[in-house]
């Protein structure tokens, strides 16, 4: 197991005051909070920061960690000495919540804080197991066509000694057709087990992966469709990919870049279904040979056109 330098994670000095640690935490938590942040690996950073704060904000844990940490470098292989924490009294101020901490943390503090938080958050519904939550990335096709998808979920579990470990389980889930990003699937009885009662439910929140063609806006889909200048100017019928298959799309004459065409009801098949939008992009043919250059020159001669008229030029 690797030794973690919590001071380095938080970017504070080893003699930082409580106020400095709190300030550093708040700044980093805002930067990396998975709900807020668009930083790469935000979630991993956020967990690391949360773990560091959990230790450094609690005077007893910090003191124990400081004593332990002398002479260790981050990343170094590390084993805690047996009974290393026997002389510290843990008041249980820490709340592990549903965070999953590193093996390093779990080997030091996992037992106490998980067990305590378990007791404090006593299940208010005896006979009914806890509801669990997970977030998964889903391909858009699953929502468009329905079908089963397999997800591998990590589940933090406490063993009999109160130690925390991650278990994996794979679930095959039937995806309801028309599901939208941010919506949830309830899997009855797949949550926490209850002693002598019904198990809780598992709620899976889905988020769409980026699609190669379509952008998703709620239940609407949007496609950027390149057209040639003459197709836009004169009108044309062009082959266009849609979720339901290729369609012949009519481009009206005098279309402009950014013109939006709507195909009603051809978006995500929710109830009611979303729409499919085509946004036109004008693609310029390259003036790569003499013939093409002559065609551009002929256009310039035939049309007195000032594209900068709007700028007063």
């Amino acid at each position, binding site marked *: 197991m690797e030794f973690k330098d919590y001071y380095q994670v938080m970017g504070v000095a080893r003699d930082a005051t409580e106020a400095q640690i709190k300030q550093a935490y*708040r700044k980093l*938590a*805002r930067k990396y*909070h998975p*709900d*807020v942040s668009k930083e790469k690996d935000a979630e991993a950073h*956020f967990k690391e920061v*949360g773990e560091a704060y959990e230790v450094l904000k609690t005077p007893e844990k910090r003191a124990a960690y400081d004593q332990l940490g002398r002479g260790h470098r981050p990343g170094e292989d590390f084993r805690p000495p047996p009974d290393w924490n026997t002389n510290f009294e843990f008041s249980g101020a820490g709340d592990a*919540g549903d965070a999953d901490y590193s093996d390093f943390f779990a080997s030091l503090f996992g037992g106490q804080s998980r067990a305590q938080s378990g007791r404090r*958050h006593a299940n*208010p*519904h005896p006979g*009914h197991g*806890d*509801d669990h*939550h997970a977030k998964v990335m889903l391909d858009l096709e699953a929502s468009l066509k329905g079908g*089963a998808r*397999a997800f591998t979920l990590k589940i933090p579990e406490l063993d009999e000694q109160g130690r925390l470990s991650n278990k994996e389980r*794979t*679930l*095959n*889930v*039937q995806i*309801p057709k*028309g*599901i*939208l990003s*941010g*919506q*949830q*699937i*309830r*899997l*009855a009885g*797949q949550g926490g087990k209850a002693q002598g009662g019904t198990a809780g*439910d598992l*709620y*899976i*929140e889905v988020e769409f992966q980026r699609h190669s063609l379509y*952008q998703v*806006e709620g239940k609407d889909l*949007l496609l*950027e469709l390149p057209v040639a200048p003459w197709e836009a100017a004169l009108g044309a019928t062009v082959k266009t990919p849609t979720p339901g298959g290729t369609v012949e799309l009519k481009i009206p004459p005098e279309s402009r870049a*950014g013109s939006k065409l709507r195909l009603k009801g051809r978006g995500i098949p*929710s*109830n009611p279904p979303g729409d499919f939008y085509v*946004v036109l992009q004008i693609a310029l043919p390259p003036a790569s040979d003499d013939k093409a250059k002559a065609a551009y020159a002929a256009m310039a001669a035939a049309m007195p056109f000032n594209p900068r008229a709007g700028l007063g030029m």
Partner: protein
Amino acid sequence: MSVAMNPTLQGTLIDESTLLSIDDLCRICSIERSHVVAFVEEGVLEIAAIDLPEWHFRGGALRRARMAVRLQRDLELNLIGVALALDLMDEIESLRRDLNARR
């Protein structure tokens, strides 16, 4: 085959046609009723406009409530801060969509 070991689970879609009672929301999010009441008073959550004696919420409230709880806990925000953060996040989301549509 693995299909036999892992049967396909049929779930229930929680969408805007789903109604969750205040007790459902409390149980699913592991929060107290008073917490939900405070969220409603601060405008973080909206009650579904239906004629039932108890408060009910649309499916989307589930994600919002869980985000609110996480923001409150992880960033040590007060309720007004949570409400503001969620509103700004909604706005960023819609601006980002506009931006994507214009690109």
